[in-house]
């Protein structure tokens, strides 16, 4: 079980997330798929850190987690504002962004 297996798993999860972003229309589910893509990239970072046996990849993955947490907070607030304005969380209904 070499790091290449981890990278392959990360690729598969990333593709699943990307397809989810393209297919789904509920803004929350799209957001979850974005989170899945971020997680897949984190897994690749950890795998490459293990490959080279140094910790920089893990530090980058840690920073990705911090940025993802900040992004989730703002994104969910935007979805809530959108829901208040349009009474719907579907991305098809959002044609003007104001609250």
């Amino acid at each position, binding site marked *: 079980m070499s790091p290449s297996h981890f990278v392959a798993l990360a690729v598969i999860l990333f593709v699943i997330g990307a397809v989810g972003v393209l*297919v789904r229309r509920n803004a929350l589910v799209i957001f979850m798929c974005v989170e899945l893509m971020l997680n897949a990239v984190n897994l690749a970072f950890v795998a490459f850190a293990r490959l080279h046996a140094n910790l920089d990849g893990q530090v980058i993955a840690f920073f990705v987690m911090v940025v993802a947490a900040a992004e989730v907070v703002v994104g969910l607030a935007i979805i809530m504002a959108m829901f208040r304005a349009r009474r719907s969380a579907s991305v098809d209904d959002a044609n003007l962004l104001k609250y």
Partner: protein
Amino acid sequence: MTAGHLLAAGQTTSTGASVAFWLLAVISVAAGLGMVLARRAVYCAVLLAVVMLSLAILYAVAGAPFLAFVQIIVYTGAVLMLFLFVLMIVGVSARDSMRETIPGQRLAAGVAGIGLLVLLGLIVGHAAIGPAAPAGTGYGVNNVRGLATLIFTRYVFPFEVTAALLITAALGAMVLAHRERTRPKPTQRELAEQRVAGGRPSPLPGPGVYARHNAVDFPALLPDGSPSEVSVSPIIAAREHEMQAGPAAPLPPGGDAANGAASEPDSAGSEPEEVRP
């Protein structure tokens, strides 16, 4: 964590680590696919939690116990709970409609996904990723210490910038979620006057009173034996309608259960009269 310790001890390929990897790989890919395919957003959130937890264990297997715990605490604990809170606000019952608004969108997305998979697979295949180097000083028991050393020396500036990012995000969320009060807050006196002026100064009747069951979705019976529609919460009544066979004519809250109960008010008819106004 045993897998992490296993890897820390006998670094390269221990059977425990590979069993954990294959098991979790299958689980996470299946949960990811289910997340894309599930129609209800709550199922998606729960499946995403499964993916994140299995990724946390994979981090531990790959020699990153600190990241495994951060993954569980930050992602599964905080981010996913935030998702669920917003889901509850936005409405759980809202199903994603499966009607395609752009014709051929799903097919095109599938083709694009396969193309991306092939592209990334070729890249990873050509990269010739060899076996892992022997675990350095930062793996095993010294993982947290090694990460702390890196964060507070080489990455100290990004770490400081992170603080600004988090503050900005918190402020942004507060601004976006804030709603301006357009009318003054009603005082308690105004609320009381409104209530007396309105048709019903008393509280609403509880569900299930004098009916066959006392479940929350069961309307109370009035003294004349007719079901009281106000006794069932409108949310539950709406859900009852949704649960019952879809295109049928809309039933009163409580549906057929109310009709069934309406036939036996005579047995309960003697004492309710003095209690009910």
